[in-house]
């Protein structure tokens, strides 16, 4: 039915030119991962862009209001918490709803980015079995997608500022900065456990709980200043690295400087950097074995 479709290779014929033999799995040493992760992102930017787009489009599929939900969701959540707070504590100051809405956005970014990165390998099993590319791209795109969605949520700041007649200052840059920072705090932790989540999905469930519990432990419904007013607890909250980005967003909108001691800021940044280094190392070291479980 078919002819031999092509000339026989004629092991005799001289096909010696062209690419040379290389190991198919080319990986940099794991200790370099904290740096190579960034270069990988740049090298595969076309892929990264498409995957991030998939991440974002997937979130609001088949929704009439579409991206409006990025603003609606935190706004509605904040109104619920506002009423809850009035019932529990009574008569908060007039800015309180604003603090809650910003808290919900920033915490939402952290929480979703964390859950997204933790499950980034296990969710993408199909793609992983289809083709090899540096797998760090999966948690990276999960984080980037959530950062972009949270940035869109920040549009809500504009009507708030008009309503409360707040001045536009340079500090407004704190708002996007706080989103970036919460994403950064999330990815280190996410990379650290993403390979483990391939082996046992319990990790995913555990982190869903952590995100929910963290919501109350972190200044989402309350503020750093409220804790300060309680005396000794005030300094203790600084052990929570999320206090810095949450407070940052609020002070940005209010047009004030951060007002958190340097130790607190450095501690939070340091936590992020250490987690990034540790997470990159662990992810790089264990992902190859972990994907066999998918």
């Amino acid at each position, binding site marked *: 039915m078919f002819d031999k479709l092509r000339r026989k290779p004629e092991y005799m014929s001289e096909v010696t030119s062209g690419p040379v*033999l290389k190991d198919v799995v080319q990986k940099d040493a794991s200790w370099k991962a904290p740096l190579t992760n960034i270069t990988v992102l740049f090298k595969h930017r076309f*892929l990264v862009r498409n995957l991030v787009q998939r991440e974002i489009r997937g979130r609001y599929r088949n929704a009439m209001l579409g991206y409006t939900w990025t603003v609606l969701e935190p706004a509605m959540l904040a109104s619920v918490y506002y009423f809850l707070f009035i019932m529990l504590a009574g008569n908060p100051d007039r800015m309180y709803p604003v603090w809650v809405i910003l808290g919900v956005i920033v915490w939402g970014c952290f929480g979703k980015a964390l859950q997204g990165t933790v499950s980034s390998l296990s969710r993408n099993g199909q793609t992983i079995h289809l083709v090899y*590319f540096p797998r760090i791209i999966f948690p990276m795109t999960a984080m980037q997608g959530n950062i972009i969605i949270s940035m869109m949520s920040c549009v809500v700041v504009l009507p708030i500022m008009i309503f409360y007649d707040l001045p536009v200052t340079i500090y407004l840059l704190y708002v996007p900065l706080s989103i970036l920072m919460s994403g950064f705090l999330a990815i280190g932790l996410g990379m650290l456990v993403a390979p483990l989540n391939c082996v046992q999905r319990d990790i995913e469930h555990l982190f869903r709980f952590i995100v929910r519990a963290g919501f109350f432990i972190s200044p989402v419904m309350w503020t750093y200043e409220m804790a300060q007013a309680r005396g000794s607890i005030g300094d203790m909250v600084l052990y929570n690295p999320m206090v810095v980005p949450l407070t940052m967003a609020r002070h940005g909108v209010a047009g004030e400087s951060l007002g958190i001691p340097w130790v607190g800021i450095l501690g939070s940044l340091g936590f992020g950097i250490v987690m990034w280094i540790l997470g990159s190392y662990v992810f790089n070291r264990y992902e190859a074995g972990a994907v066999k479980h998918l």
Partner: protein
Amino acid sequence: MTANAVEIKNVTLHFPKQRNALKMLMNLVQRKKERFTALRNVSLTVKKGEVLGIIGKNGSGKSTLLRIISGIYPADEGSCKAAGSISLLAGLGTGFSGHQTGRENAILYGSILGHSEQVMIEKLPEIIDFSELGSFINEPVRTYSSGMKARLGLAVASAIYPDILLIDEVLGVGDPQFKEKSKKRILDLVKSTGTVVLVSHSFGLMKDICDRLVFIHKGKIVGVGEPDAIIKLYYETTD
């Protein structure tokens, strides 16, 4: 002497067995490893310009071997070397996102397969044309039939010619007309690609296009050689 395109040396690959937490802990304590050996000490070379077929029963390790070559699984023991770019044609259209349009998915899938932006811009009209989707290309993929998805997948996957092409059972998707067309496309790809490794169950086709066949049984290579002889060996071993 002809250079090798792929060199697999003494590759062994184990898969962990999924167990509950308690059992895993017990194994950890007892230093016992429960695992399934998918490939056992496999060595194989593929020459440049050769079309090599792999046959074997389901679960014998054929697809795993292709995944070793494409770098998806690193070998537990042994080494695998290859010369040049590799592309694996398998599970066409996996990774599609249902709520994006066919056009967006073509670009997404292309980027997943490692096509550059340049290539996708250049080849997109041709891909859309080949997939025969017409106006459906601007509809979300969730509205597609499975045949339409496979067509789009094949169109994207076959858009570029790699140095080494790995094909895992993707012949024969869609209706008879498209099946013929897709077969032609893949054979075309086979013809223009330097080196091809093909996994298939259609022995007739393999006999026609493969220069050599490899027979894998239970994770081991049982025989390598002329197609007719190896197919005979297959039936003798498995009957």
